[in-house]
């Protein structure tokens, strides 16, 4: 009952005209910057800080949140159209989205992204209103061993994402882990794999990495092999998804929402990891896993729902504990502090209007995003009619701006150039770039949490198995490995039998 009253207060706040304007501005701005590769939500919010500080606190917060989830959707537009993920969290959308665009189904892919984001956004706003407190307890019960076990399970789970040779995928995961370890060691401040280059001390930024590995190297490949591969070269059959497409979106969106809502609460990983997890799980439950990666609409809906849900639940630790889980929520915490409000649990009590208005605005914002983006799909798709040769320089310019704006540092632009070449070579050698990204993201987290677990347990490995959550997850990892080994063996036996029969 109290929740209902609170939600009513929230809706009344969110629907005040100045807050509606802020929400609309944020969502629109977010979509636009999401489209510009690399110009992430964090950079934009940072630029808007001076404005945000003079607005009333609730209006500022609503606008910044709008930018954040707007960018989650906008980032998927370029991922689908030109294989350049605008945000780290839409890298996985590019797998099937871009292939759909290549087949002339860019419209349905974009619409699927918009609709699944909307489903996720609406449900997640409700989840936050109802379950913010219990979800916080989940986040608090996650210690280093739990993180380690989750990430390990994730890595094993995702190792099967990319088709092709298992050995190949594992090699790429390891390569990704090595790239991810570049930089200053968290525990000893030692520089690792930096070759004495100061710019490498902070490691490689994830957005820069994703743009280079997927977007720029794809351009290089297209330029090297002729332009047949580019999305614009195919005719566009239809702009809106068919009834059958819509039916295929629903379940993946719901599953994606669940995964995203849970993973978003964990600090650090949030939206990006949840999109990977949703994709991997969708592939597991699918009856046609082999279709993933070839332009399968489920492969767009699941990660898009997950990253949107994750983006929204990542506000939970900020709202209930005052802990910013990622760059964007850190900025929002900063803006509140400059206004003299210390974020944390007392905000909901002392300023219910701010707290609930913010939560209600998430739902309002998602409605705005859907209304804004469905009609725009037609325009985005029309972008593909621009000749590829004309588009390429623009993509590269925006990608450079994006990489530069991460830290206002030219070194990031050089890094992007270098990684693009690596991406080109990887594909040329017949390997997959996706496992590299996975290793890049998960590797350092796995290492950090394993080392911290062992510091906490005075070097006792059993801590990973004796705690209930991490023990369960470790058992799941082991079972999964055994299952994979069994399946591989059975295939081998079958293969041998075939050979023997032949002989």
């Amino acid at each position: 009952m109290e929740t209902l009253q609170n939600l009513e207060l929230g809706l009344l706040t969110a629907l005040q005209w100045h807050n509606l304007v802020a929400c609309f501005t944020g969502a629109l701005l977010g979509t636009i910057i999401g489209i510009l590769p690399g110009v992430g939500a964090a950079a934009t919010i940072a630029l808007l800080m001076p404005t945000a500080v003079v607005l009333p606190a609730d209006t500022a917060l609503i606008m910044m949140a709008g930018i954040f989830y707007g960018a989650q959707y906008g980032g998927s537009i370029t991922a689908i159209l030109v294989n350049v993920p605008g945000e780290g969290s839409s890298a996985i959308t590019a797998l099937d989205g871009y292939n759909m665009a290549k087949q002339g189904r860019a419209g349905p892919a974009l619409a699927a992204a918009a609709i699944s984001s909307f489903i996720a956004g609406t449900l997640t706003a409700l989840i936050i209103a109802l379950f913010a407190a219990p979800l916080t307890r989940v986040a608090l019960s996650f210690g280093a061993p739990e993180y380690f076990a989750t990430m390990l399970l994730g890595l094993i789970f995702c190792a099967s994402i990319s088709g092709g040779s298992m050995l190949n995928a594992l090699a790429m995961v390891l390569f990704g882990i090595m790239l991810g370890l570049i930089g200053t060691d968290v525990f000893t401040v030692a520089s690792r794999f930096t070759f004495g280059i100061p710019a490498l001390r902070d490691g490689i930024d994830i957005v820069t990495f994703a743009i280079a590995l997927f977007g720029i190297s794809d351009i290089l490949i297209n330029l090297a092999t002729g332009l047949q591969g580019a999305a614009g070269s195919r005719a566009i059959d239809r702009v809106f998804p068919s009834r059958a497409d819509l039916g295929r979106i629903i379940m993946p969106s719901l599953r994606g929402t669940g995964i995203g809502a849970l993973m978003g609460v964990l600090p650090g990983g949030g939206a990006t990891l949840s999109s990977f997890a949703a994709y991997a799980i969708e592939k597991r439950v699918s009856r046609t896993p082999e279709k993933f990666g070839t332009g399968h609409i489920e492969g767009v809906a699941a990660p898009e729902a997950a990253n949107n849900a994750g983006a929204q639940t990542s506000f939970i630790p900020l709202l209930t504990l005052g802990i910013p889980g990622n760059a964007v929520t850190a900025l929002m915490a900063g803006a509140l502090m400059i206004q003299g409000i210390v974020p944390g649990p007392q905000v909901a009590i002392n300023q219910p209007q701010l707290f609930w208005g913010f939560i209600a605005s998430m739902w309002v914002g998602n409605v705005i995003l859907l209304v804004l983006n469905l009609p725009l799909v037609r325009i985005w798709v029309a972008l593909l009619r621009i000749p590829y040769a004309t588009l390429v320089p623009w993509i590269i310019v925006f990608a450079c701006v994006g990489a530069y704006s991460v830290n206002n540092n030219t070194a990031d632009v050089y890094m992007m150039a270098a990684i693009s070449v690596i991406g080109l070579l990887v594909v040329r050698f017949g390997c997959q770039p996706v496992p590299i990204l996975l290793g890049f993201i998960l590797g350092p987290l796995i290492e950090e949490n394993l080392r911290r677990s062992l510091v906490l347990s005075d070097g006792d490995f059993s801590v990973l198995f004796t705690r209930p959550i991490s023990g369960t997850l470790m058992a799941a990892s082991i079972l999964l490995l055994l299952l994979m080994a069994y399946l591989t063996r059975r295939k081998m036996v079958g293969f041998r039998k075939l050979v023997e029969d032949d002989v």
Partner: protein
Amino acid sequence: MGFLKALAVAGFIGLSAAATTSAMAQENYPSQPVTLIITFAPGGGNDVVGRMFADKIGPALGQPIVVENRAGGGGTTGAAHAAKQKPDGYTILMANGASHLIGPVLFPDVGYDPVKSFDHAGLLGEQYVLLVVNAKSKYQSFKDLVDEARTSERGIKYGLASAASINTVFANRMTKTTGARFAPVIYNGGAPALTALAGGEIEVMISAYSEAAPHIQSGAVRPIAISSTKRIGALPDVPTFAELGYEALNMRNWYGIETPAGTPKEVIGKLNEAIRKAGSDPELIQKLNQIGFVPTPTTPEDYASFLAEQVATWRTEVEAIKPGK
């Protein structure tokens, strides 16, 4: 001869013209917006304090302050950038322990000297190291903690947000001064470390009021002692280490404003005036106190000698946290 004379005259005119323009530039300072380099990402403690000050220094100078975040290298990337800018007072740097005491010792190739590469316009203020424990912890005082740490075999584990920060140096000092056993658990930033403390993964953490405040107010975390010379307004019941008999644990985490070396004296003077005006603004003081930050206005000369003294005295302690030591 005539030619040389003409050349000399032309040269003289040129020189005096240059002199007048630069004199005029100083007199008119500031005639355009001033860029404030903050060496950490937007949203963090540095950024919040920097922006709060920028809002007040701008009006005092009569020109807006544009905040530019150049994060990286533990505060050294932004400082190195600032050191290379024109010394005209239009690029100013928010210096701190990370960029001036720790970075240059850990990484000798940062490309600037914390004292010689800059002119020192004035201190903004300081915050303090705050020792906090999980609310359910049995430690009620710093004494409880030290007593336990003296007798425990493996030492008491405490959380740290970074392996190379002011707080790391403080931790080493704490171990040395008390003669007790403490063992660090390093986290990748303040937020994950505080989550671990609130969730009970660690029982003790070396933090700062600005980051621990929400948890203290919610009751999840309890402050034990603070490194200021006298108690701070936001935590009137929390004793200082000095009160508890550990004078050596007085430690300030200061922030100051610097310009590239060679900035005209007049410009430094104007900047200092604006900083001091901002630092005495009651509204700003109140906001800063809320996050445990105390403005400490100084003259440029006092700041310069304070900084030189800090750089000299910290060196050995920072050497101790270098990798491989």
